[in-house]
C-alpha cells in the first residue's frame, strides 16, 4: 500500500507498523520524532501503531538553527 512520508509517496507492506516503517527507512535508533496525520505518535507507541493506505507521515530530526 502507499503512504506519504515527508511529502513523498512510499510503498510499505499492508498493515505495517510505524516501527517497521522506521526500519524500512534505516532510521532505527536515530533521534527522530513522528507525526501521523497531524498527531504526534510517542516513541513508545511506534511498535503498536499500524499504518493505513494514504496516511501522511512526517519524520523530523534536530538540525542547526538560530
Amino acid at each position, binding site marked *: 500500500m502507499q503512504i506519504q512520508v515527508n511529502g513523498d509517496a512510499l510503498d510499505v507492506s499492508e498493515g505495517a507498523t510505524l516501527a517497521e516503517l522506521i526500519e524500512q*527507512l534505516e532510521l532505527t535508533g536515530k*533521534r527522530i*520524532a513522528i507525526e501521523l496525520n497531524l498527531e*504526534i505518535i510517542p516513541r513508545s507507541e511506534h511498535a503498536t501503531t499500524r499504518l493505513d493506505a494514504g496516511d501522511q507521515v512526517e*519524520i*523530523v530530526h534536530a538540525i*542547526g538553527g*538560530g
Partner: protein
Amino acid sequence: MMSEQQHNDPLVIAGQRFNSRLLVGTGKYKDMAETGAAIEASGAEIVTMAVRRTNLGQNPDEPNLLDVVSPDRYTLLPNTAGCYTAEEAVRTCRLARELLDGHDLVKLEVLGDQKTLYPNIIETVKAAETLVKDGFKVMVYTNDDPIVAKQLEEIGCVAVMPLGSLIGSGLGIQNPHNIRLIMEEARVPILVDAGIGTPSEAAMAMEMGCAGVLVNSAIAGAQNPVLMARAMQKAVVAGREAHLAVRMPRKAYASASSPLDGLITGR
C-alpha cells in the same frame, strides 16, 4: 572561570537557573565540528536548534546535531524558525517536545515574510496562547513593540525576546528606547534576540539591563567563529556587570580626574 558576581546573579527562566546570559544558535556553521567548538567557546548553556524533515535514504551516517550539542550538557531550545502560521509553529513545537523526550521549553517565532523575517505578531499571539495552554514554556521572539511584549507576557510566555534589528542582519539594536520601554514594564526576562552583530552591541544590550542576548549569525558569520564566541561571552559578562555597577552620570563639561591642589605652577 566563574566570577563571584556570576554565581550570585543567575538568569532565571521558568524557575530554572542559568549562569550564562548568552544564548547561542547552531545555524549557519560550516560543519558540526565548528558548531560544537563555537558553542563550547561561547560558554552558553541555552542553545537553540531547528526541527526539519529527515532526509530519507541519504547519508544515514550524517552526524546528528544532538551528538555535538548533547541534551545532557546543554538546555536545548527548539525554535519554530521557518513557520509562517500559528498552526505550523504549534506542530513544530509538539514534534520538538517528542524529539527531546518531553522537554517543554521552546522558542516561538512566527515569521511574516522571507525578505525581512519580521515576526507576524497576530500569528505569534495565537500560537503563544495555544502553546501555553498545552503546557509549553514559551520564550517568544517578537518585534520591539512594548504593548505586544506586555501582552505576550500576560498570555504566559516565560521570556520575551524582542529583535534588536532584522534576523541575521548584524545591524545591532536599532531602537534602544523601545527595548527600554519593554524592560520597564516587564516581569519576565527580556532578551534581545536577532540583530546583534558585534560584542559591543551585545554589551550594550546587557548594559541597558536586558536579561540576556541570543546570538547566532554574529558568531557563525565571523571569519573565526570560535574566537568570536569567546568575545561574545566576555561582552555579555562585561555588559551585565556594568549594568549592576550602574554607570557614572553624564556631564556636559569636563571634570578633572587628577586633584587640582598642589600643582607645581601654583595656580
